[in-house]
């Protein structure tokens, strides 16, 4: 099953303030929410379908910790805690600097809006803001990979 990313199928946006930066992306996915949720919560399978993830170790469940390596900065391992975990609806992970929120809305098979938002910030944010790469392209790639994988799965007979 080849992977061809659909260019322009979603557009990420970033809002900046002095003490924070928030990047968000949304995409409609023609798939059952349980499939999208399974893709989002199966850590060992991420690198197979998600081109923005180098690896995720650990278990995605409430209160658990995961180690994430992203293509944005492959040498760095982010140690993140699962802060919210509502099957088929909402997943939040993060650390002291920020958090990423995944939501699945509408919730009907074939009519799911996936949204991913990450807010990073704090009192020291202005000092390191320039060192953090932009997230937009990576977010678009993440959302498009998720859509493609979930819709490929649903199209099987």
């Amino acid at each position, binding site marked *: 099953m080849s992977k061809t990313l659909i260019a322009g199928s979603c557009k990420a946006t970033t809002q900046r303030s002095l003490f924070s930066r928030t990047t968000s992306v949304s995409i409609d996915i023609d798939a059952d929410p349980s499939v999208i949720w*399974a893709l989002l919560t199966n850590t060992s399978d991420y690198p*197979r379908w998600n081109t923005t993830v180098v690896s995720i170790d650990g278990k995605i469940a409430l209160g658990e910790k995961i180690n994430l390596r992203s293509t944005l900065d492959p040498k760095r391992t982010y140690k993140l805690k699962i802060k919210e975990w509502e099957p088929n609806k909402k997943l939040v992970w993060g650390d002291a600097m920020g958090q990423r929120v995944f939501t699945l809305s509408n919730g009907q098979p074939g009519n799911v809006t996936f949204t991913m938002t990450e807010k990073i910030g704090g009192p020291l944010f202005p000092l390191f803001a320039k060192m953090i790469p932009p997230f937009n392209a990576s977010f678009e790639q993440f959302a498009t990979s998720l859509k493609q994988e979930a819709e490929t*799965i649903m199209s099987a*007979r």
Partner: protein
Amino acid sequence: MTPDIFNREFQSIAGQLRSYLLRITASVHDAEDMVHDTYLRAVDKLGTFRGESSLKTWLFTIASNLAKDNLRAQKRWVENVTDIAKAAAHSNPAFFEEAMQIASTSPQAQFEVKEHIAFCFTCISKSLPLEQQLCVFLKEVYEFKVSEITTILDTTEAMVKYYLHTGRSKMIQVFDGRCALINKEGVCHQCSELNGVFNPKQNTQQELVKIDLVKEAETGNKERLFDLRLQILKELDPFDSKAAHLQLHHLEHNRQVMEKYIIETPV
């Protein structure tokens, strides 16, 4: 359904049940026990069978539930099971002595590369999460429809598709990285090596090119190559094949090695 008809029907399905349970558990003993327990449970519940699914689907449902109960608490195997088992075999002279004894005395010990390909599939499949492993076998080897698998595994069509897709994709990835039959850089040559041991007079390369999986390897079509691998499993009964005794002995060895390995190796 009368008990007589049921018994006849059960006998016609028992072979598939037995091979399915063997491939799921990798244990002859467990597979045979579970076939027996499937029969007993089915007889006990025969009055509740309304024919809403086929008898085959109903029996596979009972068997799958038994397998899930048995395997749920066990850790899964690892992708490089054949490397670990090979190292264990080399440090255990008794393994090869037993194998050579079987090879020289059993009528079902004519080593064939194809049978080893099927054996290898069984071992690697045990590195998948259990639901993925069950779905891959049910759909791809025992040819159940997705809708029938939802009944057998008591889950949704969407999740069956998810398990199937991820299970297939994962196994394709593992074989693509490891199997020297389809990838010149592959690290595992075990089927060729064993063919040299058990069939020293054969030209292994000549034997390999008779296999469609090898013939088509250069196309690089991973999905097609995986389907060819599955075709080999469909055509073989692991209990009743030319090399059954040899392969079952080998499987039991790998099972024992893996059970020890996963207990001793921290996650």
